[in-house]
């Protein structure tokens, strides 16, 4: 039996919650064990839950073409992912694979909505922390976009250096 509240205290998303709040939250989480190389969810799957990673390592990727995905990011113990599924019914925007055997906790959208209605002060603290994490991830995405563009420019030999064009101005 996992000591769920202890683990939850290490999750950044819940760092503003008191022990009693965490106990309330723990009752809404569902445990899940996933072996290495498995898919937790795929891009375009229905999106209806957030995942907390207790142990293990998860890689998030986005399909490019054929059998090739681009790796967007990795998550480690204490991280969470799939948070868009709590608010948005749109399909999953990326795929989550486990790189090693991993232990997860799942928070369904319905359970989250229940927190909103029954414990709005807990929901507010979670949402505040979520916004902070969204900002961090947005910054990371910007950096990643910059690196991807740099990669493309370097791979195609593009340099923004001005090169004098040939011309003749007869004076």
């Amino acid at each position, binding site marked *: 039996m996992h000591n769920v509240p202890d683990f939850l205290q290490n999750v950044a998303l819940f760092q503003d919650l008191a022990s009693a709040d965490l106990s309330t939250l723990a009752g809404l989480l569902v445990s899940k064990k996933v072996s290495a190389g498995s898919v937790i969810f795929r891009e375009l799957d229905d999106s209806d839950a957030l995942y907390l990673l207790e142990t293990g390592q998860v890689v998030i990727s986005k399909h490019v073409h054929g*059998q090739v995905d681009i790796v967007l990011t990795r998550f480690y113990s204490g991280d969470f992912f799939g948070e868009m599924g709590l608010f948005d019914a749109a399909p999953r925007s990326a795929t989550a694979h486990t790189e090693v055997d991993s232990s997860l906790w799942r928070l369904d959208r319905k359970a989250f909505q229940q927190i909103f209605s029954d414990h709005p002060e807990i929901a507010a603290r979670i949402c505040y922390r979520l916004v902070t994490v969204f900002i961090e991830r947005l910054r990371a995405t910007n950096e990643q976009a910059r690196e991807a563009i740099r990669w493309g420019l370097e791979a*195609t030999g593009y340099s923004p250096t001005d090169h004098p*064009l040939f011309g003749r*101005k*007869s004076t």
Partner: protein
Amino acid sequence: MPDPAKLELLTQTPGEAGFQIVEIDSSRAFWAFKPQRLPSTEWQLTPQPVGADGARNYILNNLRHDRYLLLNSKEHFLWNYFDGRHSLEEIARAFYLSVGAFDYSIIRQLLTKLYHCGLLEGRHAMDLQPSHPAAIDDRWTDRIGRRLMTWRRISLRISNADRYCSIIYDHGGFLLFHPLTFWLSTAVAILALALAVRLTPNAHDFTYFVTARPFLITSAMLATLLVASMLHVLVHALACKSYGRRVREIGFFLLQGVWPTFYADVTDIFMSSRRARVTVDLAGPMVEVVLGSVAILAAHASNPGIGQALLLGAGVMLWESAVINLYPFNFLEMDGYNILSDSLAMPMLRQQALALIPNLPRRLRSVRTIDRAEWIQIGYLVLCLASVLVYLIAHLDVISALYRSSWR
């Protein structure tokens, strides 16, 4: 130089569980990159005559964006392989087998040139401008640099210059390029030179009127020079039209960032023959020769006085202007230099010669390894330096004479 950018890819094999993660850095991808030039309908390549240095250059014209590039023979070799079917690694190997050596920077430089000229697919990137964090861009040296660049870029342009030139050419401009016009101009020039010698004793009248009516004389001279400069440029442009080539623009700019100058952009003449280029080069100075000669003839027909002095002064000044323009060894890209570089088929002679200067002491220590092209560049440098020195010495003499006379 930062580390190459890296991409992580997650790949799966159909029918197999699990996945692999592969890291690809941009330098590896670069050598697998297959550059694809634009379709052949969007560019034009014109071989230039073999130069005095034994090398052949090519002019590559992006017809869509109206941009031109000069390719040397090595770059031309690479360009032929940029067909989207060969990777840079294959191209580098082919180049090595053909030439026997390979400098990898050539490929990067050529790619930069081609992107900038918009000649490769993916040309949407060609207009990307470098951006820097504001803190770096705000240094006072950068600000001064930007101001200087702005100053150097001051220019005025006539849009649709080609259309206007076509109209002028079709409505009589073509007569300027009839062989009869050339022989008539030559006859007038010879006659004017002979008469100018006879008028030499009247030169002191000009000096007298300059001191007596300085404002009038100076204004008249400047106006004459201005009109002659505009006609000079127009005739360059009409000569370009006479070979069926396009005049990209006519305008005004600061030559070397200092000297106010009218210009006609006749780059398109490089898609024509060497003879055409030399004709375009010569056409401009012929304006000063003809106008100067006419002024001298008129001075000869006039009675002594301010009118004759003005005409004689203007004639001599226009002839001087033509001679200065036609003299190639002054470090400037004037018509004489253009004639020289076109005759030698070395369109970058001046730039190459100037680039050679920092390495000159080292190159001169191993004279035997200096190739033909470098000898020509050295010759150009020596003649330019000698000319500038002679010019300075001649004028120092004038200055010292003025200095002495002012103390008498």
